[in-house]
């Protein structure tokens, strides 16, 4: 005789449990944690270079960067003098909360205000895994298609911010930036959108402003009682 029993359980509840613990630790320490996601080559590392490059020495920022192979990105980012750690997944197409927990084991969170996580280049898989971040940021470059939000809705739905990168290419490619914005908002009406070029520096002031605003918010939230 068979018996059907209901089961209220998320498939990734172990990942979600670790992510919730990380989120609580980030909040306690007033750390803003951001999870950067895009397809390979959209400019995550370039945006991080631009970000670290403007930060004063002593800024309490650190970066975790995920790739399937090589520590090229960590080497690119380490030259700014801030703590950077490469997470090499050895084939796995996304970062999960346990990888973040392990990578943070020998860092003192009390020394940080901002933790930037560069996920593995992939528009699909990283969207399923909560890393304890305050916000997911999705990057889309003008070298890709403006219909990507419709093709990869899960990440655009979960992202708080869309960074449209490589706008210096707009005059050379058929990418319709108005349509890209419209498509992203069809999937997630509340998504914030910035247009930048990490090559020329265009639009990056707005990005720095967004980051400052979110950092201040994280500090304020840490000062409030939990709950």
């Amino acid at each position, binding site marked *: *005789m*068979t*018996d*059907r*029993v*209901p*089961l*209220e*359980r*998320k*498939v*990734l*509840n*172990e*990942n979600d449990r670790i992510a919730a613990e990380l989120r609580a630790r980030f909040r306690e320490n007033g750390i803003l944690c951001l999870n950067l996601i895009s397809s390979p080559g959209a400019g995550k590392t370039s945006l991080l270079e631009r970000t670290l490059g403007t930060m004063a020495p002593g800024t309490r920022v650190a970066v975790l960067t995920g790739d399937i192979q090589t520590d090229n990105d960590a080497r690119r980012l380490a030259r700014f003098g801030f703590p950077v750690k490469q997470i090499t997944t050895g084939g*796995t*197409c*996304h970062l999960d909360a346990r990888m973040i927990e392990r990578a943070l084991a020998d860092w003192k969170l009390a020394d940080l205000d901002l933790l930037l996580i560069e996920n593995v280049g992939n528009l*699909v*898989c990283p*969207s*399923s895994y909560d890393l304890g971040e305050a916000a997911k940021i999705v990057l889309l470059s003008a070298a890709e298609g403006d219909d990507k939000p*419709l093709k*990869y*809705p*899960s*990440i655009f*739905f*979960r992202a708080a911010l869309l960074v449209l990168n490589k706008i210096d290419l707009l005059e050379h490619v058929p990418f319709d930036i108005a349509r890209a914005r419209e498509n992203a908002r*069809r*999937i997630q*009406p*509340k998504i914030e959108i910035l247009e930048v070029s990490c090559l020329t520096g265009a639009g990056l002031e707005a990005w720095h402003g967004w980051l400052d605003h979110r950092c201040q918010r994280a500090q304020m939230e840490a000062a409030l009682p939990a709950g």
Partner: protein
Amino acid sequence: MHELGIAKSVLEAVCSEVGKRAGARVVKVGLRIGELAGVDPDALQFSFECLVKDTPLDPLPLEIEFCPRQQRCPACGHAFCVADYETSCPKCGAAPTECIGGTELEFSYLELEET
């Protein structure tokens, strides 16, 4: 292509749930996957079959219920399935509406047999 990892999480959860129920053997697993979950049901089925093969659980069918994106209108309370990415309320036209379904990546049931 993270469905193999998801399938592994499904199998681990099944094993832990069955472990809590002495004398029961699992014969079917029900899952709900939303259209915004970023998980392909066919690839997950295939990965799960591969993992279960050559284990004592084999054969263990996975029944996947695909859940469309659903929204609720904060103005008039109307709940609706999203068609052609249109998330404004089809009844009163209000926007934005609130997403209430389509992100599921969860179990719905286990079918157990007494041993």
